Structures are given as C-alpha cells and as structure tokens.
C-alpha cells in the first residue's frame, strides 16, 4: 500500500511491551496472588416500589447483561407500597457485585442486599405423583414433612417446603412412584436474627462491594438445613 494509507513511525515489533497482564475480569494478574473468581451461588434480596413494570425491569436487566440467574420470586411486604424480590444467582464475585450495583441503579429499587450464607432460605414445591402405592407414597411424604394437598384415585399431590436441596431430594425420592407434574416457587429468603434483609433504611452494599473485587477466597455457601 502507498504511504498515504497509513502513518509513519516505529512498527509494532520495534516497540517496548509491558510485562504485566490482566485477567478476563480486568484484574491485574499478580503472580503472587492469582485471583481467578469461580462462580458461586448466592441469594440477593431487593426491596422495590410496588408498581407495574418493576419485575420486568429487573428481569430485563438480567437477560440484557447476561447474568446467570437461577430463580426469581416477588411478593408483597407489610408495606403495601413495597415488594420484595428474591433471587438466587450464580456468578463469580465481580458478577455478583455488578448484579447488586446494576439492580440498585433501577429507580424503583429501594435497597439491595446479598444475604449471608447462613440466611434462612425456603422454597415450596407442589409434587403430583401416581398414587398406585399409597402407603409408600405417604411414607416418603412423611419423611420430607410433605403435606397432602390433593388426592384422587390416580394421583396424590404434596406440598414440600424447605431449602432447595431438601426439595431436590424429595423430588428425587418421589420420582420412584412416577411424577406427573411439579411446580416450584423458587427460593425466598430472609436474614437471620436482627440482621436486616433489605430494608428501607439499609443502603446498598456498594462500598463494601468494592472490596469484594479484591482477591479473596470464597467458599460455596451452605444451605441452612
């Protein structure tokens, strides 16, 4: 090509190059402290204005920014103008940090909290099974503290509540009888004791979230059952 299709100057191979590198999360790679964040599952609770479109706005945010979300529930609170959104997400720490900050940016969102690993988490499932072996079915239901909600000559439907793992286990066990249909609510959660989940007075955790990006070791959060 003629020089008019370019500029003069030392070509790339003659230039000095820095020794450092960043990882895909934009963190400088320090050979002594390798910081690679693995995805972890956590519960984020948001208190929001109870108005049309908030849920769409929140769920739109997740799909648009490709956040990996496992479940999302929404329900009223004691204040009729407020609703609580509870979501279970699985992301590396920088992703969790982004979810919290991006959620907080939505104008109808009042506060956002990531719940501590020991937070109370519960889910409800309706499990409809074939009732050919009623005694055995009842025994399994008993084992998981499931309540009978409906029964017909062919089917029995149970309500199981508990942490996700318990429900997974119950469904697994019920499957020996033949599961016709199930419906799960997704996880809802509250902080333990006097700790606040995400209240009107609680700010978002942004300032502490900054430090969440520092190299830290995280363990998979445990359920509370």
């Amino acid at each position: 090509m003629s020089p008019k299709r370019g500029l003069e100057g030392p070509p790339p191979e003659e230039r000095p190059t820095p020794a450092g590198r960043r990882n895909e999360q934009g963190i400088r790679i320090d050979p002594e402290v390798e910081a690679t964040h693995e995805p972890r599952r956590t519960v984020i609770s948001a208190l929001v204005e109870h108005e049309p479109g908030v849920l769409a706005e929140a769920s739109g945010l997740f799909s648009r920014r490709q956040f990996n979300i496992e479940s999302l529930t929404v329900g009223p609170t004691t204040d009729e103008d407020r609703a609580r959104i509870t979501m279970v997400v699985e992301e590396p720490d920088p992703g969790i940090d982004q979810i919290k900050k991006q959620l907080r940016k939505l104008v109808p969102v009042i506060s956002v909290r990531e719940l501590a690993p020991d937070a109370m988490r519960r889910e409800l499932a309706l499990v409809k099974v074939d009732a050919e072996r009623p005694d055995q079915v009842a025994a399994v239901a008993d084992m998981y503290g499931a309540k009978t909600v409906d029964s017909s000559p062919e089917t029995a439907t149970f309500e199981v509540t508990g942490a996700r793992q318990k429900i997974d286990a119950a469904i697994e066990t019920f499957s020996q009888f033949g599961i016709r249909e199930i419906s799960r609510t997704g996880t809802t959660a509250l902080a333990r004791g006097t700790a606040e989940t995400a209240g009107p007075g609680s700010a978002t955790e942004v300032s502490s979230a900054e430090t969440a990006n520092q190299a830290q070791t995280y363990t998979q959060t445990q359920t509370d059952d």
Partner: protein
Amino acid sequence: MSERASPVTQPEEQHHPDEQHDEHESTADDADEHDSDATTEPTPTPVTTGAESVVRALENAGVEYAFGVQGGAIMPVYDALYDSEIYHVTMAHEQGAAHAADAYGIVSGEPGICLATSGPGATNLVTGIADADMDSDPLVALTGQVATDFVGNDAFQETDTVGVTTPVTKDNTFSSEPDRVGSDVSEAFALAREGRPGPTLVDLPKDVTNAETDREPDDPRVPDTYEVQERADPEIVTAAAERIENADRPAMLLGGGVIKGEATDVCREFAIEHEIPVITTMPAIGAFPEDHELAMEMAGMHGTGYANMAITHCDTLIAVGTRFDDRLTGGIETFAPDAEVIHVDIDPAEISKNIHADYPLVGDADTVVSQLAEAVDSSPKATKWRAQCQQWKSDYSMAYDAPKDEPVRPEFVVEALDEATSDHAVVTTGVGQHQMWACQYWTYTEPRTWVSSHGLGAMGYGLPSAIGARFAADDDQEVVCIDGDGSFLMTLQELSVAVRENLDITVVVLNNEYIGMVRQWQDAFFEGRHSASDYGWMPEFDKLAEAFGAQGYRIDDYDDVADTITEAIAYDGPSVIDAHIDPQANVYPMVPSGGDNGQFALTEDQL
C-alpha cells in the same frame, strides 16, 4: 406560533456559561432561581388539563426549546405548547428530534426535550434515546400514547413504548393519572440531569393529557430512592493520593463524565500542577486542551499512537468519569497492564465493571478530583516518563502527506475547517471514518464543543445534532457538522428544518462514495470484498442542498478547499459543502477489535 425568533437572529445569548456550573447541585430550589427573571411577569394562568400541566412542568424546569414531530396521540400536549413561551422546533423525523435534543443537552448541560406521538413516533425516537443512554446525555422524551382504555388492545398507532424503551432509558413512566402527569414530567426532568445523566421518558396517554385537572406540577425532584454519592471515601482518597505521589509513570484518563460533571477545570489544574500526561476518551474530547504539551489526546481503536503508548505503559492510571468501553481498552488483558487504577465515577456500577479499580472512588467528578488535589502533597517524580511521552508524540506524529496533484485528503479538509473557525466552534459528526478524522485532526480546546454519537455509533447523528447544538450554542460559536456521505444520507431531510429556522450551520460532507469504515475493514479483514459498502454513486449534495434552500458548495481539489470553507462558514444560514475526498483514504492508527493498544497499526500491513 411563537413570537420568539430563532437563535441566530437573537441578540441575547441563550445560555450563560456560569449557569452551567451548578448543574449537579441543582435542585428544585435552583429551578426557582432560573425563573427569578419571571417574577416580574404576570403569574401564569392555572392549568386546566393534563397537557397544560405537562407543559407547565417543562416551563418550571426552565426549558426554552423542545424538538419534536406532531401526531395524533400527542396533539393535546402540542395544543398546550401553542400558548407556551417554549420554542418548539418541528423536525422532519422523530430520530432527528431525539438527536437534536441530545445535542442540545451536550452543549448546554441541561436536558434536551423531544416529543413524538405514539407508535411510529415513539419507535422513531428510540435510536436517539439509545444514543443518549450510551453516552449518558441528559434527555427527556415525551411520547403520546393511545387512550388508557385502548392500551393493550393493539389500537391504531399503539406501541408498548415503556416496554420498548426500558433497556435504553435511565427511567421511564407510563403516566396514568391526570393529577400526576405534570409531576411525572418534572421528575423525569430531574432524573435526566441528576447524578449520572441519561435519558428519561414519560408516556402520555391521550385521555390523561386531555383530562381536566387543576393540579400544578411538583417541582423537579428525584424520587427518594434515588441516591447520589457526592464525596468519595476519604481513606481511599488518601491511599490514591499516596499512589500518585509515588508514581513513576502516571497518566490521567479523562472520560465524558469530566465534562458532564463540570470537572474540566479541576482536572486541568490537577494535571498541569503535577505535570501528568492526559489522555482522553472520545466523549471527553475538549476536556483538556489538545494544544497543551501534556495532551496525549484520544486513546483507543483510532486514538493517537502516543496516547496508546502512554496508556499501555503507565504505572498509575487516574481515570475520571469513564466506563472503559471496549473501543478504548482494546483487549482487556493488555489494557494498561502495569497500572494501578484509580477510578473516579459517580456511578458505582462502573467501578470494576470492565477494568478492576485498585482505588475505587465513587462520587461526583468535580468533588472527588478536588478531594484528590487536596490530598496530593507532592508531584510524582516522573521526569523520564514525561520525556518518554514527548518522544512518543514525535515518534507517532499524526502528520500526513498531501501531494497537491492527488485527490484531497480528508485530514486536510478537517484542519482547514479548524483553521477557519474560532476555538470554541462546536463540531458535530455522524459515525464512521469522517468522525475519526474529526477527532484526530481538529484541535479541541474547550469542553462542550465536541458532539458525537460515541457509544451507540448512530450514523445520521451529525445533521440533527448540529441543529440541536445551534440552539444551545452562543451566537458567536460556529456550528460545523463534519459528516460522511453515508451518514448524511440517513438524516438529510433535517436540512428542511435548518432552512426553515434559518440556522447558521455548516455541513461538510467528506464524500468518498463508500461506507468508508466498512470498506476499510473489508480491505483489512475481508480480503477487499466490498459487500454493500461501495456506493459508486452519490447524489450531488451541493445541488441537493440548494433544492432545500440551503447554500451548496463543492470541493474537488486542494485549490478549492480554503476559499470554499471560508465562504461557507461566512454564509449566514445553513450551507453544505460536498467535499470529494480521496476515496482510498483510511483511518490510522488502528487497534483491531480486542487488540493490544500498544501494538496499534500505522499501516494496513501491520494489522
């Protein structure tokens, strides 16, 4: 409809620079101050309808201009506007209205207002709204909507405007109460400008704007849930200051937030006092005077070689009001890989989104850089580094050859335009090669003089934004639109507006009869296969301009350039120069997508 003349013939300046400084502190109280002149005027008549309340909300917020297009569902609002002092500019297309309002917001610092009807009117606005969202420009869009009884029934010209615009607005509202509709508009105005600016939208059903109400709108105020942190954590400020003092290779990276946060002065003072080389992102063009020796100018894909060397080799990067867009960073792994990053941003979500911040400083740019300036006691000892930066400036000079017997080089046209205009002339652009040449070869020295579609990259932005900029700029500021032939062709119907309003703007079409940037990429990465990029024919833009009633000029060779430009700039009204440039001219330096900034190519064979 209005007795107010268009701004070119108005003796009074529309905006005083001092007014713009308090945009971040502005609250409802300030809105009253804006109206202080009006206290001697008769008390405004009480509102009687929702539409009047909407217009009153705009008036209370100090709105002087609105850009829009009429239509069925927005008619009640336009009817109320008929009696208002607000000067409405009827655009040819709603996209033009949104871009004009966006540019008005960039140049004035106050939210631009655009109006459109429901359905196609609203969807036509979307490109402009998305542009404002990407660039954090303050913009308020008011859209008509079918009557609430019809909403959800697929009525004529019904679109779920709130649904369509949710991902591209800072906030939007379906206004369903006649008593609330004015206050919804006030709140949208406040939200567009507070904190990190952005576009807001209020959807106005026709029955709501037609309905009777005597409710005056509330003052513009953000909702209680909207919190903005002004000052950064003092401990992190102290740590960052220490890092700056001990830096061997410090660099500042100014982003668009510096201009939006009115932090230009404090950033300039800080850089000059501590002799820190300054790199800008594209939206920050004008934040630092490019004729200063510390100016490294724009970094990134088509940034200068010296800016890209400086950003790649610095050990401390003071980044202010930037979101580390991929066109700036190139590949993340090689972006400023030795640098500890001090990141100042008003939006906590930008901290560590793309580039990890070692020193996260959330707050208003002006406030936080002032905090930093106070905390830094001694300048970094970086004599060698500064000399290195100067060496890079000479190694990677942007000089080019312009043999007089060859087709005109676009860079030459841009430099001639810069020469022919004042230091505070406003430049608007479309998107593509011409936009990059306008970045590279015009020497910007003032904030709010560069108006472009950065994040969204919306071709067609140039002409409508020049119209909006004209209404916001002072009378002695020239407004020049540097456009490409492809970009100009997308929105040139707005010339009718420039002529109707007799706006003093100069459009310079850098015409290569290609979608030039695509052609350049096809040459570099697609074996020169010019699929759908080679027009080979373009209308004669000078004659087209004359058909509209604008002044038309044409440049074919170097001898035409200076005189034509002088004449066009001097013409008091809209003019168009069809500048036929070297069709093979390419934009360099270039960092290919995801590449290493330090390995920028100076010629095609280096890609």
